[in-house]
Structures are given as structure tokens and as C-alpha cells.
């Protein structure tokens, strides 16, 4: 027996035009196989529509609110961790790049010599700067010297404070609290 298109109509699950519905009815009368399938599908559909909806245990929204805090904390920690890892990675890359650059462009003897040279230059430079300031101090009255020291010291202190504060803020709040989860 040819079951098509009637068998397909069974599973379309859309209302058929009157003529087609009549054709289907006639086929079902003569075809026990399709009839059984139709009955099965109608049973399943009935089950789908009438099976009682499952409900969560009481207190679902309280658990949600408690979970929200924990999730936020976890997200912030993760952001901090990712930031630190990224920074460390960047520093490592730069160092590695420099190392490779020097290794490729010069021999180790040259490298050693230039290192010695550079550090001597830096040392000499520092000594010269020191001498300049010392000679400056000799000409200035003591009040100005004290004031200069005070200004320099307070600048260093406020820089340190700003640094500590920003580290503290990042570790508490994360980089941004509305970053997406991936």
C-alpha cells in the first residue's frame, strides 16, 4: 500500500484543508499501520500537553540572590587573575624579545663590553647629577633646601599611596564589574 502523502500529513501537525482531511480519513480507514501511528502520535501529543510542569524546590529566588554574590566574587577574582597573567606574560615576552635581539645582533663579548660600558656611563651620570645638586645646595639658603626635600618626599609618598590604592581597588572590584563571562 502507498502510505504517502498521508503518512507525512500525520506528522505535519497542522490543520489540513477539508479535501485533504477527507483523503486522510479514507486512507486511515483502510490502513491499520498509519492508523496505529496516528494514534501513537496523538497520545504523545496529549502527554506533552498535559504532563504537569516540574517545579523547583521552594526558595529558588533566595538561592538565586545568594548565588549572585558568589558569582560576582568569582568573576572579579578571575578578572584579577587574568590581568595579572596578561601583565606577567607581556613582561616575559618583552624580556625574551630583548634577549633574542641581543643574542642575534651581537656576540657575547660585545654584549658584556657594552653592558660594562653602559653601567659605567650610568654611574658617571648619577655622580655628575649628584655633584650638580650638591653645588646647587651650597648656593641656596637652608630653608629652600628643606622645602625642596619636603616636596620631593611628599611626591614620592603620594605616588606610593596612589599605587597601593589602585592595586587594592583592582583586587576588590575587578577591572570592570560588567565584563562578560566567556
Amino acid at each position, binding site marked *: 500500500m502507498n502510505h504517502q502523502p498521508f503518512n507525512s500529513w500525520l*506528522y505535519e501537525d497542522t490543520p489540513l484543508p477539508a479535501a485533504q482531511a477527507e483523503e486522510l480519513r479514507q486512507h486511515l480507514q483502510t490502513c491499520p499501520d498509519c492508523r496505529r501511528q496516528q494514534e501513537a502520535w496523538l497520545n*504523545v501529543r496529549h502527554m506533552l500537553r498535559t504532563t504537569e510542569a516540574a517545579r523547583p524546590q521552594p526558595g529558588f*529566588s533566595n538561592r538565586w540572590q545568594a548565588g549572585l554574590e558568589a558569582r560576582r566574587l568569582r568573576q572579579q577574582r578571575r578578572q584579577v587573575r*587574568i590581568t595579572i597573567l596578561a601583565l606577567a606574560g607581556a613582561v616575559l615576552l618583552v624580556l625574551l624579545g630583548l634577549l633574542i635581539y641581543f643574542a642575534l645582533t651581537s656576540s657575547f663579548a660585545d654584549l658584556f663590553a657594552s653592558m660594562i660600558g653602559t653601567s659605567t656611563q650610568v654611574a658617571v651620570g648619577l655622580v655628575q647629577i649628584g655633584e650638580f645638586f650638591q653645588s646647587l645646595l651650597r648656593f641656596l639658603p637652608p630653608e629652600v633646601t628643606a622645602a625642596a626635600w619636603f616636596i620631593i618626599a611628599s611626591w614620592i609618598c603620594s605616588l606610593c599611596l596612589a599605587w597601593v590604592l589602585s592595586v587594592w581597588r583592582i583586587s576588590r572590584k575587578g577591572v570592570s564589574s560588567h565584563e562578560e563571562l566567556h
Partner: protein
Amino acid sequence: MSNPETEWLQRSLQGDEEAFASLVERYQNPVFNLCYRMLGDEFEAEDAAQETFWRAYQHIQRYDPQRSFATWLLSIAAHYCIDQQRKRRAPILAIDDLLEETLPDQAPDPERTASQTEEQLAMRKLLETLNAQDRSAIILRYWYDFSEEEIARALNLSASAVKSRLFRSRQALARQFMADAARAAGKERKQDESPAF
């Protein structure tokens, strides 16, 4: 859409946590039911439902107020459950899990309700014959009265793909139903024939 809900949504869009909690309260049942039908386990369904609301909360700015909030929420739940099923099949170690610390379990171990009625079990067995995406299409169609277009939008499928998935799933479900019925009939016959001790 009723008035308090519109207000909750507006306030949620501005980051109001309490307003969002009201939405959780309102939609916990449909979301949980979808997750339960998809995953077939009460505990997994609880986790999935909580995760759904978390994702909705995080991405509330992406919600289009022209559309139904329920549809949007259920689509998030369906996607999440489909992903869970895929992960279940192929357990891979995600880098996220490595970075993540294990959180204490937040669910206050809901007693596993023994009220697994015959009806619920039969339903679960039937749905288990479908793959995750087909299952979600059937659930959205018959439990939540989604139109085929709504399903297509929710699952990121074309309308024709949804049509053919639903068609195939109806066939598979009917076949499974007939097989179950035949098995049950066979068992009964055997019980009738076996001598009583």
C-alpha cells in the same frame, strides 16, 4: 505584558537587583521546567535554571523590550541545556574550569522528590530518544506553545530546519511510544501466563 513586569524590566535594565529578583520569582517555574525536561535531572535542572537567570542578568542590555521576556529567557535556557548535553557527551577539560576555583555548592540540597510519577517517567523516557536540539524544539512547541518561527529564532535555526526537526521528532516519538506500548503489552502477557507462586 502586565504593568509590574514592565516596571521590573525597566528597573532591571538600570541594574536594579531587587527588580530582577522579582523576575526570577515570576519565571522560575517555566525556566526550571524547561531545564528539567531537557536534562531529566532535578539537580542539574536547578543548576541550569540558576545559570539561565545569571546569564540573563548579565546580558539584560541585549534584551529587546519589543519582544516577550519569557521567550528570551527560555531561549537562553534552551541554549544552555543543549550545550550541557553536548558537554555530557564529550567531557572536555575547559580552560575556564582550570582557572575557576570550586565554589561551595549553593543549592541547599533539595531532597530528591520521590514523586516521580509514572506519567513523568514515561515523558522522560520519550524525550530521551531525541537529541538535545530536537528535544528543545519539541518542548518549546508543545509545552510553551512557541510558533515555528519563535523556535527558529530561539535556537538560531532556519524556519525550514525547525520544520524538519519537528517532523522527524514527532515520528521518532510516535515510534518510541509504539515500541513502549508493545513492550508493556508483552510484559503483561508474560505476567498473565507465568504461574503464580
